[in-house]
């Protein structure tokens, strides 16, 4: 029903013309879920915006066609296009918080859509809206229809967005990362809802995502995008059982999970190319382990492999196929698990409790407290990794910050946390300065964690200046040079500013900054969740390698179960500020006891086919 033919979308910027989508051809059948997968900048979202013609002002469809039941949407006048949007094609976006207007009730917004696209008016439209809210699983829809979006949780907002999108009964739904901003348990509910509504209504879904786990869970067919091109196309079964393109293989190999424990992940080297350049060879060739001269000289076409599978790689060309070398063997990490018993207790938290005061009234008196962390106890031994797992709001980041003593001025912290026998909660300024040499932190957002006005050299030097004042200028320069080598950054980056680096490189800078004072404990606060899968693998490999080399312990805060399985020795699962279950990661993850852990693990989408 929907057919893209040689779609090419260009974005005009001050750096030149970015060909964000280049020659994408695909078709989506009625009742089918097609997943368009790619990393950031691969052109998957621009493809979706090209279909709905919602591109920004500086972008346009330069060539190709978008056929919906035979009508070319590219040629339609804007007035006619408006009729198509909503009635035939609906769209839901990634961020439910900003997709709804906060000053209108959700009912007003749904009724507006219903009245625009159907004949229903007044009470009939309202009852239709209530009906839709019920169908997307909002409890008490008669009452909730008059509430505002900020009175709802993230999952509920996304349900309302789905209700709005589907209220016009479109044949075709575009879901652009619909669950990326949500917790895994909520993600599962939303995906289940989408699937059941699809079955009920027989509509097609174009699902845009970076998460291969979600793809394995819901898609019928899969298209992999890289640098604006479709590089592999096939049914879900074909793709997961026999991925062909080296990039697709690399993506699957880069996903951390329990089977890859003790191995390094297959990080795809390098980074995605900028799309302002003219390509001559295969776009993936510079990062491909099997690339040959031919790959660099001429561009491969999308070669059909059977009825439904196609791949853009010379390894599968009908004439003169190149040999694709086997992916290099996974290297077993030397002795990563042999010294589990070796270390002493480095960090011990005992009945840690963090409360944030609620202030109100004229004099800002404290009128109550919010419990963020409630009696949390755990131990972390030297050279080991303890993962604090939980969904947003479970108090895992607060626990980390409380241990680092970053909350002294803003929260009430009780209980005890000892680092090598030193009680941190009552430590005075001088003791704390000594303790800070032992523990450091890496943050989630590599764009927010580096001061944009400081050079990389100054950023790395700051910690040494503050905590190791006895080190001379020469010593500092040597240390910084060694740090850059350790995290795999070139030496010449010292005089550059953070914005000149990619996300992965910035995270390397942040890691180098944390390592600058030779800490024994690093608190990693979701260090890879803002990164693409292939870059995440590079960073995880780096963290693991550093642990083996330096014997540093990680308190790893994350919601990503795959990362936990791959990296952690011990796991503590947090819910609502409490640790509900803790233990060795192998045991806990294979046989969870607590009901919440079971729900959490069951909700995690796996990037593989379900057995049977």
């Amino acid at each position, binding site marked *: 029903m929907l057919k893209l033919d040689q779609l090419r979308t260009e974005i005009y910027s001050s750096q030149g013309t970015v060909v964000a989508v280049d020659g994408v051809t695909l078709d989506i059948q009625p009742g089918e879920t097609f997943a368009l997968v790619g990393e950031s900048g691969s052109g998957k979202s621009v493809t979706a915006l090209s279909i709905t013609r919602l591109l920004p002002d500086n972008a346009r469809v330069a060539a190709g066609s978008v056929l919906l039941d035979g009508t070319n949407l590219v040629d339609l006048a804007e007035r006619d296009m408006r009729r198509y949007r909503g009635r035939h094609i609906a769209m839901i976006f990634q961020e439910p918080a900003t997709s709804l207007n906060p000053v209108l009730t959700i009912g007003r917004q749904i009724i507006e859509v219903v009245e625009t696209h159907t004949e229903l008016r007044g009470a009939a439209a309202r009852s239709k809206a209530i009906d839709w809210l019920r169908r997307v699983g909002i409890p008490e829809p008669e009452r909730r229809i008059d509430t505002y979006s900020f009175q709802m949780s993230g999952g509920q907002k996304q349900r309302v967005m789905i209700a709005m999108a589907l209220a016009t009964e479109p044949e075709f739904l575009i879901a652009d990362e619909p669950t990326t901003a949500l917790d895994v348990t909520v993600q599962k509910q939303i995906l289940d809802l989408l699937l059941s509504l699809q079955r009920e209504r027989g509509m097609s879904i174009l699902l845009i995502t970076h998460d291969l786990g979600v793809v394995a869970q819901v898609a019928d067919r899969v298209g992999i995008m890289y640098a604006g091109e479709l590089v592999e196309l096939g049914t879900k079964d074909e793709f997961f059982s026999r991925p062909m393109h080296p990039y697709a293989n690399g993506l699957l190999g880069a996903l951390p999970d329990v089977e890859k424990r003790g191995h390094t992940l297959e990080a795809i080297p390098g980074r995605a190319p900028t799309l302002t350049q003219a390509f001559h060879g295969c776009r993936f060739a510079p990062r491909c382990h099997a690339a040959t001269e031919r790959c660099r000289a001429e561009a491969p076409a999308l070669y059909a492999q059977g009825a439904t599978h196609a791949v853009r790689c010379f390894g599968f060309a009908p004439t003169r196929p190149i040999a694709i070398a086997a992916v290099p063997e996974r290297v077993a990490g030397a002795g990563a698990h042999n010294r589990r018993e070796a270390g002493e207790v480095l960090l011990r938290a005992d009945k840690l409790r963090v409360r944030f005061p609620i202030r109100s009234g004229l004099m800002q008196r404290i009128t109550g407290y919010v419990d963020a962390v409630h009696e949390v106890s755990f131990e972390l031994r030297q050279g080991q990794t303890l993962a604090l797992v939980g969904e947003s709001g479970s108090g895992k980041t607060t626990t980390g910050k409380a241990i680092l003593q970053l909350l002294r001025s803003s929260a009430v912290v009780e209980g005890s946390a000892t680092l090598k026998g030193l009680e941190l909660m009552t430590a005075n300024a001088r003791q704390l300065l000594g303790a800070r040499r032992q523990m450091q932190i890496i943050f989630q*957002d590599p764009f927010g*964690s580096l*001061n944009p006005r400081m050079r990389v050299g100054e950023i790395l030097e*700051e910690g040494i200046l503050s905590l190791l004042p006895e080190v001379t200028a020469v010593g500092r320069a040597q240390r910084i040079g060694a740090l850059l080598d350790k995290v795999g950054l070139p030496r010449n980056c010292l005089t550059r*500013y953070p914005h000149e680096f990619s996300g992965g490189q910035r995270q390397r800078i942040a890691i180098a900054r944390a390592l600058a004072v030779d800490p024994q404990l690093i608190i990693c606060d979701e260090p890879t969740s803002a990164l693409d899968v292939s870059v995440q693998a590079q960073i995880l490999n780096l963290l693991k390698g550093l642990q083996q080399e330096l014997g540093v312990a990680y308190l790893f805060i994350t919601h990503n179960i795959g990362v936990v399985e791959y990296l952690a020795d011990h796991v503590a699962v947090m819910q609502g500020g409490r640790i509900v279950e803790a233990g060795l990661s192998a045991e806990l993850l294979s046989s969870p006891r607590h009901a919440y852990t079971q729900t959490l693990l069951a909700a995690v989408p796996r990037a593989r086919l379900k057995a049977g």
Partner: protein
Amino acid sequence: MKIVVLWTDWVVFFVLAATLLYAWNVLRTPHLASTWRKAFASPTGSAAATVLAAFVAIGVLDTLHYRRLLSNSTGTAPTYGTETLSLLDHLLRKQQAGKERSYSAPLAYLAYEKEAVTTNGETRRIYPRLINAGTHLQDPARDRAADVITRGLVGAIKGMFVAGLLACLLTWFKSRRNGRGLAAAWSDIRSGRTRMPLRVVLGTVSVLCFLSGTVLALSVEYHVFGTDRVGNDLFYVVMKSLRTALVIGTLSTLVTMPIAVGLGILAGYLGGWIDEVIQYIYTVINSIPYVLLIAATVLILMTFIDNHADLFPTAANRTDARLFFLCVILGMTSWTDLCRLIRGEVIKLREAEYIQAAQAFGVSTWRILSVHLLPNVMHLILISMVISFSGLVLAEAVLSYVGIGVDPAMQSFGTLINTARLELSRKPAIWWTLATAFSFMFTLVLSANIFSDAVRDAFDPRAIHN
């Protein structure tokens, strides 16, 4: 000759030095250099900057003060004139000296008011000839128009000649720098194919040269903009007013900045009772009508100056001290908006992860404030500095209107407007004082506003740069 450096002169020199230092720093810092280049790359921005630069040049000329040597006989201490002059006074000495008895219209040769003149024992009330304007004309009624046109044209041609010279110089410089021929460089500039909008700058300079050439040529024999009530040439007065306006704009901003930035960052970062106290202070200051506050302080000050005459040897020192303190007072009362702005920004930045990373390193509070927070609110400071400049120039006009502005003896737009307002009701109306003051002040403030717009666009990360 004795060099005199008044208080506000020190300030002007300091600001100039600081600007040069900052410019040098900008050139060495890539991200700052590219941002500033963006500000100057907008055609309106660079045109406004050119006009501003011309005004600043006049202001600086008016800042180099000296007292003339009267006698220097050996054996006795040299004596100096009581009048403090500036380089601008020297350049415009003809216009300064060419005083009339009272009002006269622009380019007039007769006075505005009739006077009783006794010729041949007979007393008649006539419009007397002006003492210093149109004296070279034999039959003014017949010759004046032709004379004005020829003089104006000659001046305009001279001005255009200077502009052409500058264009040649620029082309030569450009061709040297790019290693291309003169013709190629000129065609690049003419068709706007340069990185900076040189064509616009050159156009603005030409217009300025044309206008100033004409005015200067005419001002030798006429009062181009007329004269004021005590017969001063308005052209001279308005040139002198420029410095006053510039000093008020920059010095008040200079006083504002440290208070606003310091208190804003402290309140935002430290929070708690410090935040409460600072918020309390600016809420209180904001709730007092600022005219009242300024009036009270100016009165106290005037009493102080009168009681300590020995501290201020000349009239120039006195008027200058009053200007200086007026700026200080203006600055002390107008820091609240910026302070509030910075406090809000810092509260947002305080939660930034790089600040927390610095805290985790045990970096001292002072260093976090100065190294991490200050550079990250700098764009706010800069934007508000250029915007508040024009506001302060206008504020001076308002204050002088109410009579609490600069010393009445000091030339300023405010005093000009204040004296002009009553005369508007005369018939025929004396429109030229107001018109002159208005058009110069308007040009100054407009170019400052346009330039600040360009700066804000360049520094605002949310602005779209296509």
